[in-house]
């Protein structure tokens, strides 16, 4: 057990140092990621300006004021900083295709555990570097927020972010395992990215979707990657709905943990490696 922990610790340390090399790229990339928010601020400003409200009340779209809407977009950048796993699924599929996956099969190391530690290291370095641009942007945009939420809401928010990370990892890892059965999976990943972008709430709050569409999207696990944490912070989800949402998010994590394990086990049985 002790030896196992030491091994995992060393893997985490090496991955951490490896990722630190690209800290400049991380910082620049993070700042740039806020540029589309600037257009969103003006787009929604223009949308809200054209709405007419009888009696001069506050303008709202699906219960979002203009300030709520911008705060929502800013909060989804935090959700995405936890849940997005760039290159994970395509990396797994590539390793399977070019045979690199063999290194996990012949060494006494668990592939999913190794990849998870790699991602933890990646995220730790990312937060370490990105905290400055994030802090700057959120400070400049502080006027869009109603203030800090209550401590119990904050705790639920942090829990939903941590679970968003795990769910994002397991979901992408499971999709990456499809590479064991299909040689070319890039187009499939593109479709997943497309669905992820629209139905996770990254592009707009999913409460905007009317009727059955909104209900359907809320049945998917994708909402827990961007929408749910932001909605918890803003109080769009409150009371018993928060606890219920957190349990459903946890259930999806368990589901994809089991799915990825089964896919890995069956995939390895199906896999054929040739040459040295």
């Amino acid at each position: 057990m002790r030896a196992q922990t030491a091994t995992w610790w060393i893997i985490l340390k090496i991955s951490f140092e490896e990722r630190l090399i690209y800290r400049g790229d991380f910082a620049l990339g993070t700042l740039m990621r806020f540029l589309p928010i600037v257009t969103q601020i003006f787009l929604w400003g223009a949308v809200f300006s054209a709405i007419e409200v009888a009696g001069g009340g506050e303008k709202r779209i699906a219960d979002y004021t203009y300030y709520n809407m911008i705060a929502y977009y800013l909060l989804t950048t935090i959700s995405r900083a936890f849940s997005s796993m760039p290159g994970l699924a395509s990396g797994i599929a590539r390793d399977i295709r070019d045979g690199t996956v063999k290194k996990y099969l012949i060494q006494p190391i668990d592939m999913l555990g190794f990849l998870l530690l790699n991602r933890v290291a990646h995220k730790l370095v990312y937060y370490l570097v990105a905290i400055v641009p994030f802090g700057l942007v959120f400070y400049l945009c502080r006027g869009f927020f109603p203030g800090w939420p209550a401590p119990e809401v904050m705790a639920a928010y942090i829990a939903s972010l941590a679970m968003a990370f795990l769910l994002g990892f397991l979901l992408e890892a499971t999709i990456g395992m499809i590479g064991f059965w299909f040689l070319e999976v890039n187009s499939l990943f593109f479709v997943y990215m497309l669905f992820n972008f629209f139905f996770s709430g990254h592009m707009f709050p999913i409460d905007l979707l009317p009727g059955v569409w909104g209900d359907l999207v809320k049945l998917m696990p994708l909402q827990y990657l961007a929408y749910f944490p932001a909605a918890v912070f803003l109080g769009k989800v409150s009371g018993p709905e928060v606890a219920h949402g957190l349990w459903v998010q946890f259930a999806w994590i368990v589901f994809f943990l089991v799915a990825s394990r089964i896919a890995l086990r069956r995939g390895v049985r199906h896999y054929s490696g040739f040459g040295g």
Partner: protein
Amino acid sequence: MSTRPSYFRVLLTFLRNSLVRDMTFRANFIINTISTTSWVFMNLGFYILIFTYTPMIGAGTGWGKYQFFLFLSTTLIINSLIRGLFINNAVEFSEMIRTGTLDFALVKPIDTQFLVSLGRIEWSAIGPFTCGLALMVYSLFRVQYVPGPLMILLYVFYVLCGTAIYYSLMIAMAATSVWLGRNRTLLDFWFYITNFARYPMEIYTGTWGVPIQRAFTFVVPVLVAVNVPARLLVRPLDLRNPADVFLPLFAILATIGSLVMSRWVFKLSLLSYRSASS
């Protein structure tokens, strides 16, 4: 016999070769076309959703639902031209500089910028291009204004100007790989900059909006790339209105300026290029 290559014939060869390659991997081509087209439909869905809550993008701007769809169709057409003709080549150009394979392009008896800009054409961009055209025709039937033949000719001209402005920015950014070694982030930067041009310029108002509008009109002229042609489809050109005269004239100047500037950056980058091989 002239040793000068026929650029038109070379371009036709690029088009044919790329099509042959795409048809060799037909399933991949079909899936690519479907995925890029789905992206268009998802985006369209987002704007349809927005217009269920508002009658217009910006109070009093005139960008109602179908006027905005004409704007969107222009964005789609310009973006698919860029995607089909240049994006892959710009990414490849950065890689050529990094790996040293640009040597092979330099020794060919043809203009290097032409060769690296158009060598590989992505035919799957025809999907979003067709969607853009279809959306334009549909929206034109819905708006009150019918543009005449001159307006349509001007529209085509300004779409080409917009494409040239986007291309110039992209190739200049790709050329900076010579000094930076690797510039994936800079190409991302191109996407983020052109993101400002996805909406009508009237949305940029107020203390922060006006400087942004001016910067992306006069310094990096991406805002004129889509706004000028799209306006031609939405309402008649009023020559008594200074904005209707100034902006189209400025767009021509901006196109020439962008092309000259990008050519200068490109040539400068070639002068600084040192092959990566031994």
